[in-house]
């Protein structure tokens, strides 16, 4: 029994991994479906005598619909799952068990960070593959290399989100505080992204990179955000370790 296995069991026995995958799988199925049949759905719901004309859906719309839905509920699920693991000081007695048995708090934080990141990336990947397959069936093929690059950018964004969660858990003790603060930081970044050219530097830009790529954007346009996200991951995890080591129980 190791701290790595502890985190794996936390993900599997508490069904957190299942929930994460389920959320992304659901949106992977429904996103392209919604994009394909949105016109017909609105027709059935619409007022008699009024008809809304939609342009014919494109393959990129299937992925865009998936990302649009998953980037909200899916992200919330990722933050909740990661927050409950990273906020290991939330219950003092459980924190005493871990903290008095490791040489440094890094031994606790790293497995929790890496396994929760892996779980989030796995869920995103499964959702993306599902959306890709369904889009290909319903709307037409998508460019494979651009999809792969977009998925990689999305995975990096997940790593950044979990790193921010780890950092917030080292600032506040409770799980609710960790989740709330993390969502606050991500929301602020998303709002800042609307200001001038700042958006291309913010890691939140990566969450929808796959949509931009399949719509024809250059992969190079996401490099600034990639650099910031990579640096942010390292800084946030290092900060989490340093702040947690200084925390008193």
């Amino acid at each position, binding site marked *: 029994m190791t701290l790595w296995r*502890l985190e794996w069991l936390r993900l599997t026995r508490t069904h957190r991994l299942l929930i994460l995958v389920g959320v992304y799988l659901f949106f992977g199925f429904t996103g392209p479906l919604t994009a394909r049949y949105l016109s017909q759905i609105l027709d059935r719901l619409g007022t008699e005598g009024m008809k809304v004309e939609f342009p014919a859906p494109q393959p990129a719309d299937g992925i865009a619909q998936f990302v649009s839905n998953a980037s909200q509920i899916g992200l919330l699920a990722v933050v909740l799952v990661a927050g409950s693991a990273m906020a290991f000081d939330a219950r003092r007695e459980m924190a005493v068990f871990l903290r008095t*048995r490791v040489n440094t708090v890094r031994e606790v934080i790293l497995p929790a960070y890496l396994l929760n990141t892996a779980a989030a990336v796995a869920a995103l990947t499964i959702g993306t593959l599902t959306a890709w397959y369904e889009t290909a069936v319903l709307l037409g093929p998508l460019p494979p290399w651009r999809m792969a690059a977009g998925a990689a950018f999305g995975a990096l964004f997940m790593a950044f989100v979990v790193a921010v969660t780890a950092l917030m858990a080292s600032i506040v003790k409770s799980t609710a505080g960790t989740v709330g603060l993390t969502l606050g930081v991500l929301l602020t970044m998303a709002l800042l992204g609307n200001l001038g050219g700042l958006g291309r530097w913010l890691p939140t830009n990566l969450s929808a990179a796959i949509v931009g790529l399949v719509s024809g954007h250059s992969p190079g346009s996401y490099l600034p955000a990639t650099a910031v996200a990579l640096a942010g991951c390292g800084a946030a995890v290092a900060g989490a370790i340093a702040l947690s080591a200084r925390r*008193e129980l």
Partner: protein
Amino acid sequence: MIVQTRDLTKLYGGHTALSAVDINVPDRCVYGLVGPNGAGKTTLLAILAGLRRPTSGEILLGVARHRMAVLPDTPQFDPWLTGREVVALAARLAAPGDTEERVEQTLRDAGLADAAQRRVGGYSRGMLQRLGIACTLVGEPSLLLLDEPASALDPAGRREVLDLIARLRGHATVIMSSHILADVQEVCDSVGILRDGRLLFEGRLDSLLVGRAVPAYRIHLRSGAESATEALRSQDWVIGVDPLTANRLHLNVRSLAEAEASLPAVLAGCGAHVISMAPEAADLEDVFLELTS
């Protein structure tokens, strides 16, 4: 000494939790930390465990941190782990290597062998306390810091824990805090008495009790109480005789040694029929109340 503190002080804002505390814990003894609520016992244990930092002062530890184990007053664990997994994790973190047999033995010693496969979320508070103790012992630490180790246990469980702590004497050093003074008196060699963050007394338990005890005997007779009272009052080593009931006497003496040597002969000489006689020892509760009131 395995643990020493010098002028250890801890402030929480304006509140002084510990004030210039100097403790000296001999190697391989059982050291009891007693004091009323808010005296600073948990803070002191947390500082020794490295979970809190002192505001000032120093700690001298004669043992590496990884040879130390801590038991909080109400141990809690992830409820989706089994008891065996919790102890296995504690074993792995405390002493990596082949831990399987050690885990099984510790579970048996803690009386949890039958519940080892059950998830901890279904454990009673007493079982959680036993599990906490198992996790503390499985790494065979040199120094154990136990915060109220028997507080959640029923009388049988409490007895087992006290016996277990007593068995550790000579093998490891135990520092335990407790509100149950009878437990401390039973298993501890040395005590530290805290009040309002200050150490009021530290030393060997017997010297604390003997130093404050008025030498006295309690005598229970089948018959002959009147003649015994008269005979005892004539002895120069007897300070006073107080009849407690018709057949029970309370005897204040100049020293226990003189009473031990002479009392049986005096009682035999006056024809009293003796059921029992024993020196009256001061107990920790009396001394604790005297020091902390």
